[in-house]
């Protein structure tokens, strides 16, 4: 199997790992997004809590979630390895550069954007995932069945303005990360074609870089406004 390690340790192989993990994480965003739309329901969090119960108890979902955690780690770790390698490829830098003349800002700053997102993910998981699994979450009862009331945790977290701000900034970073990352993922595995690349670009830009981060950002804002009684 030396060809496997050889392939995966080549510059192209590493990029393929970035691409596959990245595209997988992007697809997860769609699911995560769809599920979290339950937060907008005015049912005191029942739909949301039932959804979280499903997500934490379905064996298929649980397996995928571990794949997801691994993907995040591998994506981040590989990014670190690649960045170090890329930096070492130019040991002496130019005295004066004008990169804005030939490339987009987001494409050159995927590492910084990714770091912001990693910090965000840690924070996000500490607040919700950790609490859900290991913390003391109040219980709620629907139709005689006990559910962990994660909705309460969400309410508490998003009632603080600075916490909401972190989320909004992070979602902006997500948008910039995906506007480049989504289409780059396809390029890396060679999926580029006159007919389909414009579609991929549109999908990456309008859905993944704008719509999804905007909806994600809307959630904490909505809860904040609601928790502080700005809206009903």
């Amino acid at each position: 199997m030396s060809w496997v390690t050889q392939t995966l340790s080549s510059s192209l192989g590493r990029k393929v790992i970035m691409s596959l993990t990245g595209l997988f994480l992007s697809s997860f965003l769609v699911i995560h997004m769809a599920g979290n739309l339950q937060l907008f329901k005015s049912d005191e969090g029942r739909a949301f809590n039932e959804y979280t119960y499903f997500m934490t108890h379905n064996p298929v979902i649980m397996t995928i979630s571990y794949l997801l955690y691994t993907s995040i780690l591998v994506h981040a770790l590989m990014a670190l390895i690649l960045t170090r390698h890329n930096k070492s490829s130019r040991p002496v830098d130019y005295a004066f550069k004008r990169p804005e003349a030939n490339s987009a800002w987001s494409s050159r700053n995927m590492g910084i954007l990714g770091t912001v997102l990693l910090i965000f993910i840690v924070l996000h998981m500490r607040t919700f995932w950790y609490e859900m699994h290991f913390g003391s979450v109040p219980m709620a009862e629907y139709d005689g069945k006990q559910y962990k009331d994660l909705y309460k945790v969400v309410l508490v977290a998003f009632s603080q303005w600075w916490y909401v701000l972190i989320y909004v900034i992070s979602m902006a970073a997500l948008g910039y990360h995906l506007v480049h990352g989504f289409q780059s993922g396809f390029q890396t595995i060679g999926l580029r074609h006159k007919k389909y690349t414009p579609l991929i670009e549109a999908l990456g830009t309008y859905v993944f870089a704008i719509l999804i981060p905007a909806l994600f950002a809307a959630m904490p804002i909505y809860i904040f406004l609601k928790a502080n009684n700005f809206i009903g």
Partner: protein
Amino acid sequence: MKVNLKVWRQKNNNAAGKLVEYGLDNISPDMSFLEMIDVLNGELTRKGDEPVAFDHDCREGICGMCSMYINGRAHGPQTGATTCQLHMRSFNDGETIIVEPWRARAFPVIKDLMVDRTAFDRIMQSGGYVSVNTGSAPDANEIAISRTIADEAMDAAQCIGCGACVAACKNASAMLFVAAKVSHMAVLPQGQAERSIRAERMVAQMDAEGFGACSFTGACSVECPKSISLDHIARMNREYLGAKLTSENV
């Protein structure tokens, strides 16, 4: 017109280098950038100073010898052109112009603005050819090649090997250079026999030379004097992955 130059001077690969300032008057806007450096070198020589070393040869944009990172960009502010095709009319009177050599681990500085690009030759030696001995070729018209394919091959094949892609890339990646050759050979029927092994070997050699990975910023294609498309990089990725997954080379 007048220009104020800041030129990278470095005696040799081991010596430390620095930007040195030179002022030039009476520069004609019709001069090419290299002719402006010629004028500077004439003045330096008359003063008994050493002229600035720089690579150049054909001075018509095809040999790929001239390099120079000018005001923060490979081959200067003009796109789709080499430094020898850049004219002083692209600069303002009195402008400060910073001139540096290509920067990459795989392109060590030889002297001043001159770098060693033999890494490109080694990549070509690793597989950038069709193995056909002289005299063994069939009649040229025995293989029909559609015009689209021939054009696609030519788009890639016109790479001049100047290294602007590496110089412009934030990762000093040689992907566009290598992809141009892999892609040129991959689309042509003549290149089929060695298609897999070529992609595998050329990528391996590219990595061994110490070039960075591709971040798909597109800087390479923008700065390429021949505007070679990123399509070729995608094709190389496809070729490489396909080869790794299906070739007999374990």
